[in-house]
């Protein structure tokens, strides 16, 4: 069904494209937020993605690859958002007010540490990390979607993981006063 809609949309059928956008919208928003960590910017990135996808859809060679192609456009839109964010605004962002499901396994401290550390990651590492840990994609699939070598995908995930793990471990490490049993007089 998706293939038929893609083929219609490639020939200018706006209704078919609207159906595709409705089908993909939630997924795009979820991934964009995981990369950008900001609801407003994620919405902007999704909007850019939908318009760019419409514009470029006739250039898509294989309609069966629509989903991956759309993710690739989304990732580039997220990169553009991050570039704009660094240039024109400060990096302090309000956390989303959307209700979110929380996993008790993740402590508030861990979450804060991860949030701060994740915002320090370059966008390409954020994207690979989100694809792997949110969408559950394997590295070869991520490499194919992002059109990067498998080794590059591996190294991006490796560096992102190392930084985030270090952030959690640093948080878990006892403070100097804890460790030395330092007492106030």
């Amino acid at each position, binding site marked *: 069904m998706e293939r038929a809609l893609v083929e219609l949309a490639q020939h*200018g059928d*706006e209704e078919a494209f*609207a159906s595709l*956008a*409705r089908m993909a*919208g*939630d997924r*795009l*928003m*979820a991934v964009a*937020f*995981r990369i950008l960590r900001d*609801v407003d910017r994620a*919405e902007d990135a*999704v*909007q*850019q993605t*939908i*318009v760019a996808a*419409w*514009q*470029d*859809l*006739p*250039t*898509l*060679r294989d309609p069966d690859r629509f989903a991956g192609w759309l993710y*690739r*456009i989304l990732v*580039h*839109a997220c*990169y*553009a958002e*991050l*570039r704009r964010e*660094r*240039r024109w605004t400060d990096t302090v962002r309000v956390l*989303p007010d*959307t209700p*979110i*499901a929380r*996993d008790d*396994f*993740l402590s508030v401290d861990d*979450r804060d540490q*991860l*949030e701060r550390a*994740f915002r320090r990651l*370059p*966008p*390409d590492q954020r994207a690979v990390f*989100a694809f792997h*840990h949110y969408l559950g994609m394997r590295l070869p699939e991520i490499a194919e979607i992002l059109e990067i070598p498998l080794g*590059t995908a591996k190294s991006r995930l490796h560096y992102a*993981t190392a930084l*985030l*793990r270090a952030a*959690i*471990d640093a948080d*878990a490490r006892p403070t100097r006063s804890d460790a030395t049993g330092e007492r106030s007089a």
Partner: protein
Amino acid sequence: MTNERDFDRIARAFMADGPTQLADRVLDSSLADVHHTRQRRVLLRAPWRTPVMNMYAKLAAAAVVVVAVGALGVWFLNPGSSSPPVGAPATPGASPSEPAAPSAVPRSSSVPLGIPAPALSQDFTSTRNGITLAAPEGWTTRPATEAWKGGIPNTDEVTADAIYDPVLQDHLFLGIASMPLGAADAEQWAADQYARDFADECPDAQPITVDGAAGVIGAGDCMHLVYVAKGDRGYLILLRVSPDESWLAPVYDRAWFESVLDTVQLRPEDAVD
């Protein structure tokens, strides 16, 4: 220390946080934009792969090309003698009543967004290297703090000034390094440095002039890199564009690099070693 299984679970929990639905207003607004946006049309598309052709087919195809090129040549040499051959590109003025057909160049599906390079509006002066240039607006600058001994520096090396995109970092940056020439001849120094550090990666070099000084630049699709010498100092100026970000190369190309080089002022007398 967090073990791998714990970390994976933590990472999944962290990634599970956050919205999973696109607001209707965003979708509606996007589709309204779509309604006012024209699709790119692809009139020519390269085949997935070159079709296998037998010898006769190849000869026939070659003959068709020769005839078409010949017909076009005759028409261009004497355009008033006849109407353009079928399939020839429309030229402005050929038919004043009709607009020229837009050229349709197939785009790579991997370059979805045309993000222009920022303006070269940020002055950067390196006191260590004795050089001034116009850097892209918004890029981060990190001056060199130690002497350069040769080699191709990366963004995290303290022997080179680094001017880099704050998001893409080592995937998109300008690097500047310099050293005293000592007894070396200026032009020879540039050629020697190129041959020593870069010729393996990019064998073809071309002469170039930067701020009136002679140097060499890598030719072809290599990393954009220049060695140039002025007075008693040799300079390396490079632009690194990561091949991992295929959308960058059409923007940060040789022409863009040369536009940066056009702003360079070499001041070897100001350099500090």
